[in-house]
């Protein structure tokens, strides 16, 4: 059990697609619903009077949600099989809650997008797939749900799959899987369903257990954002000055030649310290403490990288931004920015386009981004930021924006690949991400 892997996934679907029922079903069928939870569910079903145990009540935790029968925020659920531990970010499907799906998607290895077999691919489906691709979720599973209500029809499943593939071709989703299910009846959730003999793939749970996630991290580019400096001030550790942090990408080994950014000074790793002893090698996402050979001024927000593989250091960059509060993002406004361990102030200089969330087409000529809108924004920051394009590494390319008056997190950004100017050509490569 100690060597089980951890898989984080998120679920998305529109209001009645049965997300909560699906998660309830996974918990129920993997025997993770406990007697007291079942008892509580029975109590609440007695109150609503329909006498049916509602699996959705397992995840809809807050009073307002029960009263309105909706999910208002990201809820995290946990279950395990002998093969893997799972963390589920259950996010609501309403139009106004794009921000919650973005939040749940940011750490996910995999997204489950629910499609109602009776409705097929609708605008909501497109929106969810777009967000999954924007957040670079490595694996996407389209669960075509309520197959029982379309007589378990293979033709309908194939049609929906074709529709989805046609529209998703431009999204750059790395790994796409389709599974016909009925969450309510448990078809193809844990066990292969006899009602779907034409489907030869694995049931959902087996896919979740087996999908290969070893490549989901970036293990190519060594990145160590310095989080905290450890100085013991004790006689026996007189010379100890350790740079604590979580490795955001790649490997570090004792003896590696490193560059410290943004200063550009160079040194060598002398020790990879942990409370459990020294290591010869450490890799993402381990939390360790590095010591280096030279007495260089290094503080929180700096980044230690290998000398032969340097990220971008710049005060201007473009990013896809999802706006998360009622008050719109304004061109020329000033916001706090946190990127890795580095905090500064940022100003949106220009909004290059906004994504029409229904057509997924870029719209130009906009001056702001409203709640739940997504757009490509050019930023300038007060100090140089250290980053990789988000599509290279989520943890060195993602940032949050903070309103400096209210302290609220107002936006999430994903840095775009800086455009390459090819001599003699017009740079017109406008792509969604």
């Amino acid at each position, binding site marked *: 059990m100690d060597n089980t892997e951890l898989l984080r996934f998120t679920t998305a679907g529109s209001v009645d697609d049965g997300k909560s029922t699906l998660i309830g079903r996974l918990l129920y069928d993997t025997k993770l619903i406990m007697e007291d939870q079942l008892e509580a569910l029975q109590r609440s079903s007695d109150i609503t009077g329909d006498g049916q145990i509602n699996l959705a009540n397992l995840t809809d935790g807050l009073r307002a949600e029960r009263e309105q029968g909706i999910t208002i925020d990201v809820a995290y659920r946990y279950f395990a099989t002998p093969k893997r531990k799972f963390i589920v970010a259950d996010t609501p499907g309403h139009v106004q809650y794009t921000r919650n799906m973005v939040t749940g998607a940011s750490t996910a290895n995999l997204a489950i997008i629910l499609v109602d077999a009776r409705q097929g691919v609708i605008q909501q489906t497109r929106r969810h797939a777009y967000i999954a691709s924007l957040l670079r979720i490595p694996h996407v599973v389209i669960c075509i749900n309520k197959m029982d209500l379309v007589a378990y029809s293979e033709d309908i499943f194939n049609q929906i799959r074709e529709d989805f593939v046609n529209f998703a071709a431009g999204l750059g989703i790395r790994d796409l899987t389709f599974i016909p299910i009925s969450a309510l009846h448990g078809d193809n959730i844990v066990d292969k369903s006899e009602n779907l003999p034409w489907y030869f793939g694995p049931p959902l749970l087996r896919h979740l257990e087996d999908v290969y996630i*070893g490549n989901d991290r970036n293990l190519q580019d060594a990145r160590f954002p310095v989080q905290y400096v450890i100085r013991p001030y004790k006689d026996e550790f007189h010379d100890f000055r350790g740079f604590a942090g979580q490795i955001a990408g790649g490997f570090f080994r004792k003896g590696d030649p490193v560059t410290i950014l943004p200063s550009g000074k160079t040194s060598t790793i002398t020790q990879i310290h942990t409370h459990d002893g020294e290591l010869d090698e450490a890799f993402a996402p381990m939390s360790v403490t590095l010591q280096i050979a030279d007495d260089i001024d290094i503080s929180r927000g700096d980044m230690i990288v290998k000398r032969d593989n340097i990220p971008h250091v710049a005060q201007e960059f473009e990013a896809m931004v999802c706006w998360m509060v009622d008050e719109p993002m304004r061109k020329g406004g000033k916001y706090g920015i946190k990127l890795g361990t580095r905090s500064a102030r940022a100003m949106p200089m220009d909004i290059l386009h906004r994504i029409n969330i229904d057509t997924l087409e870029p719209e130009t000529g906009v001056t702001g981004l409203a709640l739940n809108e997504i757009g490509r924004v050019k930023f300038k920051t007060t100090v140089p930021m250290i980053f990789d394009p988000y599509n290279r590494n989520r943890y060195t390319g993602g940032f949050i924006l903070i309103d400096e008056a209210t302290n609220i997190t107002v936006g999430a950004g994903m840095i775009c690949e800086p455009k390459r100017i090819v001599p003699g050509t017009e740079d017109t490569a406008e792509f969604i991400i």
Partner: protein
Amino acid sequence: MKSHTLSHLDVLEAESIQIMREVAAEFERPVLLFSGGKDSICMLRIAEKAFRPARFPFPLMHIDTGHNFPELIDFRDKRAAELGEKLIVRTVEDALAKGIARQTPGETSRNRLQTPTLLAAIEEFKFDCALGGARRDEEKARAKERVFSFRDAFGQWDPKNQRPELWNLYNGRINPGEHMRVFPLSNWTELDIWQYIDRENLEIPSIYFSHEREVIRRDGQWLPVSDLLPKKPGEASHHLHVRVRTIGDISCTGCVESTATTVADIITEIAAAKVTERGSRADDKRSETAMEDRKREGYF
């Protein structure tokens, strides 16, 4: 070539260390809440991994209900001394005497009274961040709480107005008088905690292991007989081999029948358990939203 995969415990540990270091870096006066219970024992080990060989950048604090299992208090003091870290204790008893906390007539459990006591201690020491060992798998309201959970000047949690949390980026900005509750173990489950205790060989209070105790049956639970919870006239008590799964006020902490004498036994028992950990807490059974309501007021 060796494989570069990490086990789920390694990943959870790395995440929790990162969260604690964010607290150390972004707050002026943090505190770590330590009760001597199993989750806070894991918190101390994570803190060692995050900050040694330096001292912790925060003191430990216990909000003592006065209704304790005595074994727990001994353990709490011993552990803090072993680590050489400062321990602050603030008691509900004292808060009642000062009028900071008020008892509702007929209320026997002091879990609710921890809230005003905690808020008064936060104000007394001007703490701007309190690290706690709560986990999202414990309860439905917790499942929706952020890792960095903002509290206004009244210590209140507003579930409908939480800051979005993306990647491993936490927004720790607050104004004076407000504070943050931070839960580094948010993504751990009860089983993860026990597997970690086993892996790290952590010492835990004896009441987590099977022992013989006089208990009474109330509302489907075995509650320990004590001065605070005497038998009612005519009520029969039993001497059973029990252990506790979660520790609160002694008057509302249910015991489970158990023969588990080692951590490995406990892991086996939990993996096969049919009720959740909080199922043994009478204070959570009052209503569907008991925890949500207490949290809104500032409870952990």
